[in-house]
């Protein structure tokens, strides 16, 4: 495009703080989330779940439940018309566990009921009698790797084993540091709980599902297979989504809700409560990681060895992909020529784990950033210096052999973060809310020590290993009205706003209507992997450009001008070589144009047996510096400030970027010091917000963010995904700060008070 924009960007276009179309309603409480949906003549659905992590179902007796007044239908595995299995990568998870078969985790669905009232559902579930033969759950991943555990599933107990071997393994460092690290099971803890409303077609041969999900088309594929219906008979409409963070990638209540609706011929709604939500979705993989870094005396990394074990729990979900993300990010954002990494993702009777913001990289990053501080200490250099010394650049080769041809401003991220002023020292008599212990008033000034810690990370963007996760968008002009349609799940990230910004910018219009987000257009891929700004942004951009080109062609033809000289400038179309100027609004008022575009990223490859291959599309980088006040005697922590500089390619909406950064930092802080699903012998012990603790306002730090804007030429808008990086290296940054304050090794997150002080 050959327009030179001189005026500041027009309000609502790319680069501005365009306001969100759903913003006011969400703030005022008027936005309809999935859990608010309702239909005339609707029934309520509920799910019976196994209390046991590992057992054989001997019998299911639903007769007493049928007798309860108001119960309309009870369904079990026998009632699943299609495939009684689903899963994102392999279909190994039953819709309902079957008589004679196994339940493999505590919370596994066994039956579902639809009734006239939630209370009736509750009574019906209590009336279903299930007889179990209970087994000792398999909860130790090492037992699975060693082949000593009983087989949990016909697919076996190892989801994937992958090695990465590169370079000269005989190289030894002058300095060698190692550590065993452990990462606990984090929950996505979205506020908008799982909810769906299924409305059967009048003929009973199809269904419409209103659903809070991350990927409508993938859901549809799996649902249709389970229902035994052709995909076109299953239509999905996005319900209001209250956060996702990976927890809505997998099927939860989709098939159950549709099945109940089809069986009763009435609309059915299922809505989970908080406790059921903990059982209903996958979590972040707990992991154990051993890492050994070899470096020269002056701190240059020469070799990394690592072994990573991800506990995938009872069903596969995305475990193989999470594993690959983990092991391919072993080196972090640092140069490394020689490496050997051994990675396992295994099946246990623990809760199933899958996608969560950061997707495997969070675990690897906690380990490598802990190692970087150890290495700095061993070499006697500053933690910042050692990171700068090893910082990766564009053109460097990863341990997979892939060349990083993304913009890679690692050094800039570190330097910009370091340049952010440190917070002032704690006052002599600080407010209790500003110090560790907070409202509990546990500490006085003299009990507190301050620590500073660093974390830097690299994160792949988009799906990997040969996956073509394309996105589709459609742009139309009809009677002068511009509308955009896509199936991109708006989960709170603001794509609805971005799509309008793109259309306004490309087409030179102010009003952009958004069509319903549903499966009546091609797939958008998942709202995950920091990919929608790039992928769906690319698709919306392509569709809008296609429409704009037609508009320009029309103008060129009408005024007998060369289309090559025409361009959109603000809300006008101008002749870049002359003085011709006409308002876009006037031109399009009588046009009808309809263009659909797909955006595909460049293809990627599988890894070979040595873990070599161009498996990732692109990368983003970020640095975090945490300042943490610690009460070493009680092990309590207050994160004072997190400074960060993030590689974003280009800021398309400053407010949105800040939102992602602040939210991600809070989530990473949660993993660092409090968020953990505590599982004992396969059972979740804290399935509620009483005991699964999320950071409150008092726990959240001041965030000082800087964006490194280096236009990413591979990205259709020059922008990189912003969603995941904020939550990745902040966790080790906080851990390193606590280590800095206390001198403790702290090999595990979340860091519990007793880890610090006992």
């Amino acid at each position, binding site marked *: 495009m050959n327009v030179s924009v001189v005026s500041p960007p027009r309000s609502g276009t790319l680069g501005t703080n365009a306001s969100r179309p759903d913003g006011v309603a969400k703030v005022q409480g008027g936005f309809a989330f999935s859990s608010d949906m309702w239909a005339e003549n609707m029934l309520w659905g509920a799910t019976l779940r196994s209390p046991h992590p590992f057992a054989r179902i001997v019998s299911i007796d639903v007769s007493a439940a049928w007798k309860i007044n108001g119960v309309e239908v009870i369904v079990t595995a026998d009632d699943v018309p299609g495939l009684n299995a689903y899963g994102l990568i392999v279909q190994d998870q039953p819709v309902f566990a079957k008589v004679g078969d196994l339940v493999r985790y505590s919370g596994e669905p066994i039956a579902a009921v639809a009734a006239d009232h939630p209370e009736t559902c*509750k009574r019906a579930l209590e009336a279903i009698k299930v007889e179990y033969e209970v087994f000792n759950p398999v909860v130790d991943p090492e037992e699975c790797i060693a082949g000593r555990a009983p087989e949990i599933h016909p697919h076996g107990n190892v989801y994937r084993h992958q090695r990465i071997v590169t370079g000269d393994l005989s190289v030894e460092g002058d300095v060698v540091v190692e550590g065993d690290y452990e990462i606990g099971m984090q929950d996505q803890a979205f506020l908008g709980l799982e909810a769906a409303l299924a409305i059967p077609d009048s003929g009973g041969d199809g269904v419409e599902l209103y659903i809070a999900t991350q990927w409508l088309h993938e859901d549809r594929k799996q649902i249709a297979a389970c229902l035994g219906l052709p995909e076109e008979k299953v239509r999905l409409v996005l319900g209001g989504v209250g956060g996702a963070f990976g927890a809505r990638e997998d099927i939860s209540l989709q098939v159950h809700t549709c099945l109940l609706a089809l069986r009763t011929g009435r609309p059915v709604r299922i809505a989970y*409560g*908080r*406790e059921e939500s903990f059982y209903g979705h996958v979590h972040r993989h707990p992991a154990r990681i051993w890492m050994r870094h070899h470096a020269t005396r002056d701190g240059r990394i020469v070799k990394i060895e690592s072994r990573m074990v991800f506990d995938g729990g009872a069903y596969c979900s995305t475990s193989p992909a999470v594993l690959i993300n983990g092991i391919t990010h072993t080196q972090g954002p640092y140069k490394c020529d020689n490496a050997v990494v051994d990675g396992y993702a295994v099946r246990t009777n623990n809760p199933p784990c899958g996608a969560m913001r950061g997707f495997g990289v969070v675990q690897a990053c906690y380990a490598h950033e802990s190692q970087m501080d150890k290495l700095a200490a061993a070499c006697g250099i500053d933690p910042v210096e050692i990171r700068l010394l090893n910082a990766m650049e564009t053109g460097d080769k990863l341990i997979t052999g892939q060349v990083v041809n993304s913009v890679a401003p690692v050094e800039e991220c570190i330097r910009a973060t370091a340049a952010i002023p440190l917070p002032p020292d704690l006052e002599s008599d600080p407010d209790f*809310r500003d110090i*560790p*212990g*907070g*409202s*509990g*008033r*546990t*500490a*006085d000034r003299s*009990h507190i020590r301050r620590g500073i810690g660093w974390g830097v990370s690299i994160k792949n963007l988009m799906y990997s290993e040969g996956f073509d996760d394309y996105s589709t968008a459609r742009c139309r002009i009809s009677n002068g009205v511009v509308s955009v349609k896509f199936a991109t799940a708006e989960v709170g990230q603001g794509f609805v706003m971005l799509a309008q910004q793109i259309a306004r910018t490309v087409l030179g219009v102010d009003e952009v209507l958004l069509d319903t987000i549903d499966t009546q257009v091609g797939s958008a891929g998942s709202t995950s992997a920091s990919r929608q700004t790039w992928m769906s942004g690319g698709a919306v951009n392509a569709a809008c450009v296609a429409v704009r080109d037609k508009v320009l062609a029309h103008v060129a033809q009408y005024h007998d001008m060369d289309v090559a000289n025409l361009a959109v400038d603000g809300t006008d179309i101008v002749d870049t070589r002359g003085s011709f100027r006409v308002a876009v609004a006037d031109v399009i008022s009588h046009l009808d144009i309809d263009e659909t575009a797909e955006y595909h990223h460049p293809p990627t490859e599988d890894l070979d047996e040595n873990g070599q291959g161009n498996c990732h599309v692109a990368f983003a980088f970020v640095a975090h510096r945490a300042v943490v006040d610690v009460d070493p*005697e*009680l*092990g*309590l922590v*207050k994160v004072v400030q997190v400074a960060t500089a993030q590689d974003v390619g280009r800021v398309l909406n400053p407010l949105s970027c800040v939102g992602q950064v602040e939210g991600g930092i809070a989530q990473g802080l949660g993993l660092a*010091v*409090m968020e953990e699903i*505590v599982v*004992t012998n396969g059972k979740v*012990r*804290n399935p*509620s917000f*009483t*005991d699964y*603790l999320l*950071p*409150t*306002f*008092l*726990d959240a730090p001041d965030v000082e963010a800087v964006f490194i804007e280096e236009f990413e030429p591979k990205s259709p808008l020059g922008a990189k995904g912003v969603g995941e990086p904020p939550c990745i290296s902040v966790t080790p940054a906080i851990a390193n700060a606590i280590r800095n304050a206390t001198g403790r090794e702290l090999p595990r997150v979340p860091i*519990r*008070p*007793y880890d610090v*002080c*006992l």
Partner: protein
Amino acid sequence: MSVAIPTSVGEVVDLLSRNPQATLLAGGTDLMVEVNLHGRRPADVVALNRVSELRSWSVDSSRRTITIGSGVPYAEMETGELARLLPALAEAARTVGSPQIRAAGTLGGNLGTCSPAGDGLPVLAALDAVIDVVGPNGARQIRFADFMVGVKRNALQPSEFVRSVTLPLVEGWQGYAKVGTRNAMVIATASVCLVRTNDRVAVALGAVGPTIIRATDAETWLAANHTMSSRPNTDTLAEFARLVRDASRPIDDHRSTAAYRRHAVGVLAQRLLTRSYS
């Protein structure tokens, strides 16, 4: 489900006499969790929030006591005159939940639930509060130590309820501290209330046993071995903390470990004692 909304203590007595199974509802911050999360379905509910007598407090200056109605919400204890008179209670109230919870939650409910982690309870224990209980046969006064009899168990008979709590207005220092894994809105993993008068200290421990525990050995030892008017030295503090730790009877659970809880009450008691001199 029936819901009765009495406006006087007499009406509450009548309602409970007729239906001893009725469930009392004060702020509902415990009860509604039971209903919504744990599926409790009370048949009959007696709501207390319109009983103005329960929502007031008064000072008896001749006896030097203060009587707080069981329905006074935490928000009222956090600041103002009540906070000036009972600083430890104010600090305990401030640690309860979030502003929304403190606007609704009451001491009566804390006593009704009687969780070892209830934040109001160590203050009542340290100050030797007397619980004024009313039932069909009139009122009776129960010392806090006799009121809480176990984990979520109290000495109330069917048809009885808590009208108020009477606490002494002590000369001296009092304070409360609570450890949780989050800086606000968290259930105590360990808590301590300490009251220091001119000749002794009282120390009560929360969340480290089936009931609130008074660290009487620590109290007695300190009274015998330390002049209260002077600052304790490090040896005194250490021995005091050790005796407090020994008084605790904590357990391991998903919130924390027994070892940490034991450690934490020692640290808190020591810090509160130090704080009482600053």
